[in-house]
C-alpha cells in the first residue's frame, strides 16, 4: 500500500480506480517518509512494536544470563578467597600456638626469643608470653624492641609489673624508655592521670632514645598534647600553615563555621 503514495501519477491512477483515499490525494511536496508513517495501520504498528519488544526482551535476557554467569563466577572466586583466608588464619593460629609452646620450653635461647617475637608480631601479647618475658627477659638489654610492641596487649597486672620492672631495673636505656612508653600508652584509656605523669617523665628522661619519627620524648610530647588539647569538649588548638597553593591561613579563620578537619592524602 505504501507504494500508492510514492508518486502523484500513481496515486492518481489508484484514486481514479477508486481504490483508496481518493478524498485525500497526496501532494507533490509531501516528504515520502511522512507519508510512510501515515501509512501504518494499527495492525502494522502492533506487529512492528511486538517485534521490537521481542527483540529487546531477547537482548535483555542475554545480558541477564551473562551477568548471572559472571556473578556465579565471582561467588566461586569469593568462596576460594574465603577458603584461602580461613586456611591462612588456621595456619597462623597453629603457628602462634607452636611459637608460644617453644617460648615456654626454651625461653632464653635465640630460637625461643624468635618465638616470643613471632607471638607478638603475628598475634598479640598473650598472658603466657608476658609471663615468659617477666621471668626471663626483664633484665635483657635487648628487650627494647619487644616491649615497644606490647601496646596491643591488655593492661593486666602482670603486664604492668613486667613493664615497671623493665622501666626501673633494666640496664639498657632503650629498654627502659620503651617499657615506660608502652605502659603509658596502655594506661591512656583507663588511667589517664597516670598516663600523663608517665608521659611527662618520658619527655624529660628519654630525649636520647630514638623512636620512629624522632625520640621517645617527642612521641610522649605528642601524646600529652593529644590527651590535654584534642579531647572532645576542648577548644581546638590553632593551626597555622600554608594551603596547597602556598597561601598562608589559620584554622581560626573559620571560626563561626562548623569545621570538619580531615587528615588525608592521595594514597
Amino acid at each position: 500500500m505504501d507504494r500508492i503514495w510514492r508518486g502523484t501519477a500513481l496515486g492518481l491512477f489508484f484514486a481514479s480506480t477508486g481504490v483508496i483515499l481518493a478524498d485525500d490525494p497526496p501532494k507533490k511536496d509531501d516528504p515520502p517518509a511522512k507519508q510512510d508513517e501515515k501509512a501504518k495501520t494499527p495492525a502494522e504498528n502492533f506487529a512492528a512494536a511486538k517485534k521490537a519488544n521481542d527483540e529487546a526482551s531477547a537482548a535483555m535476557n542475554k545480558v541477564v544470563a551473562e551477568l548471572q554467569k559472571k556473578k556465579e563466577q565471582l561467588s566461586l572466586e569469593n568462596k576460594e578467597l574465603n577458603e584461602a583466608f580461613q586456611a591462612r588464619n588456621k595456619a597462623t593460629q597453629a603457628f602462634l600456638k607452636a611459637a608460644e609452646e617453644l617460648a615456654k620450653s626454651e625461653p632464653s635461647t635465640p630460637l625461643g626469643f624468635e618465638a616470643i617475637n613471632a607471638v607478638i608480631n603475628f598475634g598479640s601479647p598473650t598472658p603466657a608470653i608476658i609471663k615468659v618475658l617477666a621471668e626471663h627477659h626483664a633484665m635483657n638489654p635487648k628487650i627494647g624492641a619487644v616491649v615497644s610492641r606490647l601496646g596491643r596487649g591488655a593492661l593486666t597486672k602482670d603486664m604492668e609489673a613486667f613493664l615497671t620492672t623493665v622501666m626501673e631495673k633494666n640496664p639498657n636505656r632503650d629498654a627502659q624508655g620503651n617499657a615506660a612508653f608502652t605502659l603509658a600508652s596502655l594506661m591512656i584509656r583507663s588511667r589517664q592521670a597516670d598516663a600523663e605523669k608517665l608521659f611527662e617523665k618520658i619527655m624529660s628522661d628519654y630525649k636520647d632514645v630514638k623512636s620512629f619519627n624522632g625520640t621517645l620524648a617527642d612521641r610522649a610530647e605528642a601524646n600529652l598534647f593529644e590527651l590535654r588539647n584534642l579531647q572532645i569538649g576542648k577548644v581546638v588548638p590553632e593551626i597555622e600553615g600554608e594551603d596547597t597553593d602556598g597561601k598562608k591561613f589559620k584554622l581560626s579563620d573559620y571560626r563561626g563555621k562548623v569545621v570538619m578537619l580531615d587528615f588525608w592524602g592521595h594514597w
Partner: protein
Amino acid sequence: MAMFPHERSLVKRMEGKPFALIGINSDREKEFLKTQNEKQQITWRSFWCGEKGTSGPIPTKWNVMGWPTLYFIDHKGVIRQKNLRDEKKMDEFLDKLVEEAEKDAKGGGS
C-alpha cells in the same frame, strides 16, 4: 580515597551554610597532589604538611597515627566529635552542628 565521593557531595550540600571542610594533606609531592586534586575534583582547602608528609609538623604535633583522622569542630571552635566514619551518622552530626551555628547567628550576639 574512599571518602572523596561523600566529601564532594557534603561540600555541595553545605554550600551557603556555615560549614567548611578543611583538609590536612600529607602528600609528599606537591605536583602529584595538585594533579590528583584536579582529577578527583578536590575543591576544599587543605593545609599542606610539607615534604615530610605524614611525619610533617601538624600530624606529628597532633599525634596522628592513622589516616584519615577526623575532627568535628563546632562554630565556637570546640571539638565535638572525633573519627566518626559512618557517612549517615557524619551527615546527621554535621547537620546538628550547622543548625546550632545558624541558630546562634540568628540569635545575634547573646
